[in-house]
């Protein structure tokens, strides 16, 4: 050939071989010199963030007439406001307030002069794009952006807000300049109460430690994932957030196709029924082992109707933990554009007012719940009203002797919303959820959150309660408090925390404040649970002193939590076991440190 190397002495083949070897050598060198893929270290966060504030209020309100099904003509001349959200039942309140996907005659939205369209969209990226489109049109000078694809607000799970708001904020700053536009949580409209769950074999429930090494399909960063992560940490299990590696000492996640919660369910089914496996790079202590592991999917974190699909198709699977146990974890958060909302405060307050009023009717009257199921069917265009009605209340089924739960939602009235944000009782449940999930995002760094987003928008910037507080003339009822008088026996989770005390004393070291904050947040998310708190010491010193010390250390934790607003009646047992129950050897300093601990058990 003599063309490439400008020589006539070589044959074409040998010349080509030389070229290939040289190029191969260069590429090989690049491959070996360049940084390899980063692997994450599985983490066991020393803390639980559960807070359980059941907000199923008993209220008495005068019945309001049900909305008609025809589109309202009264508000048709007003500019249309669009809100988009996933298909889930916890949004029933706002949907029935509207009468369906568009504002209907006699609906509460019509009465509040709102012309609203509710759009179902199950893809998070598309929800985000629609909201970005709204901002773009608003930026171009449209006071009420009207294109079909633009939405003023999205409704997503409130525990997903730190992820959503932070990633969009970075993009807004880059596109429009720093701090020109913001997204904010403007209210909570309801909550998942069992609808979102971790599904797995019954052993995960009776012995949570048996989850170690499991591979769970889910939408990473989503609320179902948070429920699962909460459960892992409450039980002292490590979590591997890296979807490309497998750590046998931790709970691992498989990110579902298209970030679709239904796919999470389907992936479990196909793995269990066809033997479908996933090849992952083995990892130990954050380092690649060099082995490839082929794993079946062992469980999934999903929500209704994903759970129904699993229970219909598979035997031997139950709901392990759900938003019923972590009852404050997953509110329906209305996330709107701050700059538009501050120009139209009454509009935003009226949307909230209509929704919260409709929810109050749903709490009081069954025909409102039935009408809501119809409105939801019309909006989501999936299943039928009977299905949504049943799923709202939660369904129990049995298969081959195993009992499982599906569905379960709640809607917020005004008192619930005010209580949820701690406006009425000082316990800001949402702040606990927001901070806890922010902590998961930054500490676990799923999908490289820190590198991609840079940081979480702090709670105070991400939440704006002005529009909620601005509501007036709404029937306001007292929220029901959780009843802690009954003794609870079923262990939901049991975690061991290393809380440092000053030597020989029950004064908590300042270094443990973060851990206590995590425990507090977890307790807030699982507010219905009662608590057993037991202190333990190492074997230094005599028995009697250690016994006393362990008990007073448990009491110190209780005092801290009480001072943060956890009622005394929630603590079922506060005890100390001294040095009698070590979990590690007392012969080494590391072992003794493990033995100096406080065990917190959450009971249902």
């Amino acid at each position, binding site marked *: *050939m003599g*063309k*490439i190397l400008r020589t006539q002495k070589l044959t*074409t083949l040998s*010349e*080509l071989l030389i070229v290939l070897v040289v190029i191969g050598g260069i590429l090989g060198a*690049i*491959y070996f010199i*360049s*940084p*390899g*893929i*980063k692997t994450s270290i599985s983490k066991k966060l020393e803390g639980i963030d559960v807070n359980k504030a059941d907000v199923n209020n008993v209220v008495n309100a005068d019945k309001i007439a049900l909305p008609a099904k025809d589109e309202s003509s009264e508000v048709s001349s007003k500019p249309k406001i669009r809100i988009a959200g996933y298909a889930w039942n916890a949004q029933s309140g706002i949907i029935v307030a509207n009468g369906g996907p568009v504002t209907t005659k006699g609906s509460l939205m019509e009465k509040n002069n709102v012309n609203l369209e509710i759009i179902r969209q199950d893809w998070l*990226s598309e929800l*985000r794009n629609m909201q970005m489109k709204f901002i773009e049109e608003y*930026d171009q000078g449209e006071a009420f952006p009207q294109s079909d694809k633009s939405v003023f607000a999205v409704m997503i799970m409130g525990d997903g807000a730190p992820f959503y708001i932070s*990633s*969009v904020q*970075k*993009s807004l700053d*880059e*596109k*429009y*300049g720093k701090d*020109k536009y913001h997204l904010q949580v403007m209210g909570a409209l309801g909550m998942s109460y069992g609808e979102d769950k971790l599904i797995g074999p019954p052993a995960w429930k009776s012995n949570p430690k048996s989850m170690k090494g499991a591979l769970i399909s889910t939408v990473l*960063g989503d609320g179902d994932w948070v429920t699962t992560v909460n459960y892992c940490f409450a039980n002292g299990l490590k979590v591997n957030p890296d*979807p*490309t590696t497998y750590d046998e000492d931790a709970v691992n996640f*498989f*990110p579902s*196709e*298209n*970030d679709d919660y239904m796919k999470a369910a389907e992936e479990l089914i*196909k793995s269990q029924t*066809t*033997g*479908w*496996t*996933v*090849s*992952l790079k083995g990892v130990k202590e954050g380092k690649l082992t060099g082995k490839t592991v*082929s794993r079946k999917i062992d469980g999934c974190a999903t929500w209704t109707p994903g759970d129904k699909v699993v229970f219909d198709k598979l035997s031997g699977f139950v709901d392990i933990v759900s938003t019923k146990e972590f009852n404050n974890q997953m509110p329906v958060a209305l996330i709107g554009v701050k700059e538009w909302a501050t120009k139209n405060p009454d509009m935003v307050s009226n949307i909230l007012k209509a929704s919260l009023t409709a929810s109050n009717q749903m709490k009081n009257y069954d025909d409102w719940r039935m009408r809501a199921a119809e409105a939801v069917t019309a909006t989501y265009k999936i299943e039928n009203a009977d299905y949504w009605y049943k799923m709202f209340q939660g369904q129990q089924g049995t298969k081959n002797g195993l009992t499982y739960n599906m569905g379960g939602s709640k809607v917020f009235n005004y008192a619930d919303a005010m209580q949820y944000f701690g406006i009425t009782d000082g316990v800001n449940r949402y702040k606990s959820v927001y901070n806890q999930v922010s902590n998961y995002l930054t500490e676990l760094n799923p*999908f*490289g*959150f820190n*590198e*991609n*987003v840079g940081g979480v928008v702090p709670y105070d910037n991400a939440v704006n309660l002005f529009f909620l507080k601005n509501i007036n003339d709404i029937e306001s009822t007292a929220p029901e408090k959780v009843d802690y008088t009954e003794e609870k026996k079923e262990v939901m989770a049991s975690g061991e925390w290393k809380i440092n005390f000053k030597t020989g004393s029950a004064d908590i070291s300042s270094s443990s404040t973060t851990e206590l904050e995590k425990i507090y947040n977890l307790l807030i998310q699982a507010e219905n649970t009662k608590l057993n708190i037991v202190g333990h010491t190492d074997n230094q010193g005599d028995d009697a002193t250690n016994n006393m010390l362990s008990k007073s250390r448990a009491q110190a934790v209780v005092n801290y939590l009480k001072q943060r607003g956890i009622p005394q009646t929630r603590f079922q047992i506060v005890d100390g076991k001294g040095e009698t129950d070590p979990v590690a050897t007392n012969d080494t300093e590391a072992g003794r440190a493990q033995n100096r601990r406080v065990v917190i058990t959450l009971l249902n």
Partner: protein
Amino acid sequence: MKKIFIPLEKISKQNRTLLILVWIVLLIVLWFAGTAGEKHLFPNPAQVAKGFSDLYNEGLVTHIFHSLQLCFISISLAIIVSLFFAYLWPVPVMKPVSEFITKLRFLPFTGLSYYITLLISDARDMQIWILVIFLTTFLTTSLIAVIRDIPQEEFDHAKTLKCSRFETLVQVVILGRLDYVIDVIRQNLAITWMLIVTVESIVVASGGLGFLIKNSDKFMNHGRIIALQIIILLIGLGLDYGINFLRKALFRFSKI
């Protein structure tokens, strides 16, 4: 100078290169100017550069090799399968089968992956076979078109040389069109590359460029998205050039 505005005018190689450079410079200037203000549609060059360096530090090269490996395995398998069907196309009994394969290229991807899943139990193998199946339909179509276009004279020539039918198949169809096969691969490479990114973003657990672009989109990290688009474009162009070069080197008298 006027020449460059006149249709069908031939210009020197040097001028052609110069023109391309001018356009590239213009594009870059437009990019800088268009993203100079506070508000901009696309990320500015600094954001893309940062995206690129971040990606590099997080294992970009490994991901690229991962995608290339997937590309190489699947296209090799697809070539074997499609050559089999294409070379059997001149045999009357097999003609309907080969032509049926070509018709399948109209099938959409969505939903079919489920059936592939049922047959293949490993997610990585599934990625490969999805690619092989879809590529085969396109490659077979192009290869049959190559065979269909062989002039009758070449067959007649073989006949005059007293070749049997099978010898004619080997000499004219198989050996005589090897350079075209390489060109068909080159043309279909763009489809491979597009599909690779799609299948990798479905099963993100196995990494690759599809995983990276999907992940960047999840976080709305536009600097990375554009950096990855540029990388994918450059790799595509590089492969295109490389294969064309290989064809020219191996078949010096090829007239494609």
